[in-house]
């Protein structure tokens, strides 16, 4: 069953067109890795899906209804959650408050502060700490936990491992793997191709705002994705 369907989406930053005529679908329970070089439009695409950035054209259909005109907070309440680039925790709130503030408008679902702490055990001793005082990995865990607190049907994770120590990346991916096993629907942006391809069912590669390659993760080779990533001709035949 299709949870999210993107139809002919365009998004701009002033004169710069960051996302050009992008269309794809996400099925229930699927994990998609969105890859591409810096400036390929991945972050803008996720922000447009979440409602943080207004589209210039196209539609975002979530769960069968058109959410293109809805504001970000309304999409959260409908079931779309974004873990933004750079974590963006509320710096002066404690870890627990960061979670609670997101849980206040949550739809029905399994997530609570205690469930999040169970899923990310590293957060247990940090509950009363100010978010600004956390390390990068702890912040990323809190940010993912905060998004989960809204009981999303679709979780968008921007730059999962950017700026994190390798140990922290491992911890974050262990938790993501648990989520994926539990049947969550996830779209994640990942710079590390190997990691992205390892967890995802499907890989979508963007270049200059367009989807240049999309396919099942186990059918694509690293070389094909790399070629598409850098815009070499051989990678483009697969299409969207």
């Amino acid at each position, binding site marked *: 069953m299709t949870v999210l369907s993107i139809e002919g989406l365009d998004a701009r930053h002033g004169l710069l067109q960051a996302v050009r005529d992008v269309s794809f679908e996400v099925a229930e329970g699927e994990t998609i890795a969105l890859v591409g070089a810096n400036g390929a439009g991945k972050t803008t695409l996720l922000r447009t899906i979440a409602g943080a950035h207004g589209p210039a054209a196209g539609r975002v259909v979530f769960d069968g209804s058109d959410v293109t005109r809805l504001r970000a907070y309304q999409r959260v309440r409908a079931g779309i959650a974004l873990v*933004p680039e750079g974590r963006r925790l509320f710096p*002066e*709130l404690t870890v627990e408050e960061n979670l609670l503030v*997101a849980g206040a408008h949550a739809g029905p679902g399994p997530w609570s502060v205690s469930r999040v702490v169970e899923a990310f055990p590293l957060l247990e001793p940090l509950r009363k700490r100010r978010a600004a005082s956390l390390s990068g990995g702890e912040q990323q865990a809190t940010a993912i936990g905060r998004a989960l607190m809204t009981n999303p049907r679709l979780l968008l994770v921007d730059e999962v491992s950017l700026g994190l120590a390798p140990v922290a990346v491992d911890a974050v991916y262990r938790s993501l793997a648990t989520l994926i096993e539990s049947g969550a629907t996830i779209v994640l942006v990942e710079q590390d191709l190997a990691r992205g391809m390892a967890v995802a069912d499907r890989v979508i590669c963007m270049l200059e705002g367009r989807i240049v390659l999309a396919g099942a993760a186990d059918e694509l080779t690293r070389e094909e994705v790399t070629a598409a990533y850098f815009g070499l001709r051989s990678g483009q035949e697969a299409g969207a």
Partner: protein
Amino acid sequence: MSWANAVDKGILLGGFYALLACGLSLMFGVMRIINLAHGDLAVLGAFLVWTVVDHTDVSPFLAMVPVLGLMYGVGYGLQRGLLERSLRAGVLVPLLTTFGLAIVIQNLLLEIFSPDVRSLGGRAGAVTTASWRITGDLAISELGVLILAVAIVVLGGLHLFLAHVPAGRAMRATAQDVDTAELVGIDSRAVYARAAGIAVAVAALAGAFLAIRASFDPSSGPTQLIFAFEAVVIGGFGSLWGTLVGGMVLGVSQTIGAEIDPQYSVLAGHLVFLSVLAVRGRGILGAREAIA
């Protein structure tokens, strides 16, 4: 009058200034709007309480209740209808908007109520003139204590609201990062409107106490705005308890100035304000957090 008397009067006056200032501080802390109409909204509150008292003959303290509710609605509506739009145009536009609003309120009050100076002091009962005599020449005004107590209750209530109530937590989150607040399901426009509602209601409360402890007319607003500003800046912008400290420092400066020479009262307040600004620009309890 002794120096001790001047200090105790100043501290009580500080309670009034804190009440006047905390709405200004809240609006700046949550949505970065410097509300130049704050003093005039307080005076509007005073006129509304005066109108209720005039028509129903109830005590001003009772008349405040419906006025506070009404002024919460006025603040909510102002944010949704006016300030929200101007915020979209950048940080300077809300400043101009509230400046214009101040002029509109002053002129409407002048048109409706005439420039007569009024006071509710005579309608508030014995509390306005009563005092507790501590020693021979040291007396504490009951009304002053009442206003200080109200200020502490309001500031304490706001503090508890922001720290422990979900809507307050959402307000702090929105103050820190409005885009991300939307991404966790917070309707930031509603949060802003609630903050403006609280700020304007508390301004009206201060205006009502201004009317009881002194006198007011349609042009009283700007002076009150300056005192509120000074209290906020001395205490530290964005810090609620700093507002109380700032109010007291301003109040004591004014009463000690008046002790030296009655002409120096307001001037002494200004001088202390300028010295704090020069020595410690972020105020005595300068906030690390936007609203704490």
